């Protein structure tokens, strides 16, 4: 099938404003959007800037706007778009470095601010091995361990578009992963950060994040659980 591909192009070092380039490509319905972009780079314009790494939906580096919706280019098939016109744009809310590459630094700063690692200064159990958890304790936070930090959720959030200081859904998801982990001891510290003006209260439950997540994490639910933990102090 013939695909009309429209790609956002912008080099802030040499251009004053972005523009779109159009390409016509032959593709199979089972081709991925990433395949189309690779084809453009290999056969039409090698200067097209985009991030990609594993190309199998694990590394999260090729998140972009595909026909207006955030998705991973390596997971989105041409047939899933139900159109032969495909528009590719960079993620919203983050500064464009070049073409489809955005500056992820603010995103990772928010992520790091919530201490996304296990904190437990208590001595190890008597056997010196591991801190055993029950199945229920693991299930409590299992969903949010699936995050691959692609930023599809945070950059689909209207509150983040309005003000990049908002900590964003991805950071909250990763805080959730440790707040509800029975082995962790820094929940109060994380929840205190999330209880600030640019923390969890900026979420307006638009559900864009949940729709955008390529790992199908129930993000809005996770955010609601964090809100409840702040107001009630209960972690179970």
């Amino acid at each position, binding site marked *: 099938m013939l695909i009309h591909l429209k790609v956002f192009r912008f080099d802030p070092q040499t251009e004053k404003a972005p523009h779109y380039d159009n390409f016509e490509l032959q593709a199979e319905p089972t081709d991925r959007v990433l395949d189309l972009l690779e084809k453009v780079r290999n056969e039409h314009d090698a200067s097209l800037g985009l991030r990609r790494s594993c190309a199998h939906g694990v590394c999260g580096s090729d998140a972009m706007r595909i026909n207006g919706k955030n998705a991973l280019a390596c997971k989105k098939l041409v047939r899933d778009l139900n159109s032969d016109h495909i528009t590719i744009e960079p993620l919203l809310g983050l500064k464009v470095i070049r073409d489809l590459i955005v500056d992820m630094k603010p995103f990772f700063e928010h992520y790091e601010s919530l201490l996304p690692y296990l904190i437990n200064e208590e001595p190890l159990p008597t056997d010196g091995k591991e801190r*055993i958890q029950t199945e229920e304790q693991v299930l409590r936070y299992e969903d949010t361990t699936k995050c691959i930090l692609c930023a599809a959720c945070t950059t689909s959030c209207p509150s983040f578009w309005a003000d990049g200081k908002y900590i964003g859904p991805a950071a909250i998801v990763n805080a959730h992963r440790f707040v509800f982990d029975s082995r962790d001891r820094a929940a109060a510290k994380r929840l205190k950060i999330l*209880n600030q003006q640019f923390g969890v209260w*900026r979420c307006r439950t638009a559900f864009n994040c949940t729709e955008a997540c390529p790992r199908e994490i129930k993000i809005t639910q996770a955010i609601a659980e964090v809100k409840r*933990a702040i107001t009630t102090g209960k*972690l179970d």
Partner: protein
Amino acid sequence: MTTTTQPPAPRRVDVPKNFETVAWNMMRYSAFLLIPLAWGHLILQDIIVGVHSIDLDYVAMRWDLLAWRIYDILLLAFAFAHGMNGVRQVLRDYIHSPKAFTVVSYLLLIAWFLISAMGAIAIIAGTRPA
């Protein structure tokens, strides 16, 4: 071999409450209270009594009962609190300075209090003998 484990003790943390926590909770409480208050008002005024039958005599008769005055004050206070909180959320998108936003939040709180107090005074003192 099977092993049994004690059910883990509930985990709790104490997160200091601040203006954001109170405002968020207030949005929920006011919405929850508005369900009976607004629906009760709507059913009484628009369906049972009917808007064309409402005049000063009716208001005076209704406000003869202190409970109705309290009801109306609560309706005003919670509906207005809910609305002001909503305005605060909208303004948040446009005010990027945390300090400015804190000032605006307190101004809205003061406005809510003053206007609710004025409304309450009017409801308590504003009837005439039937």
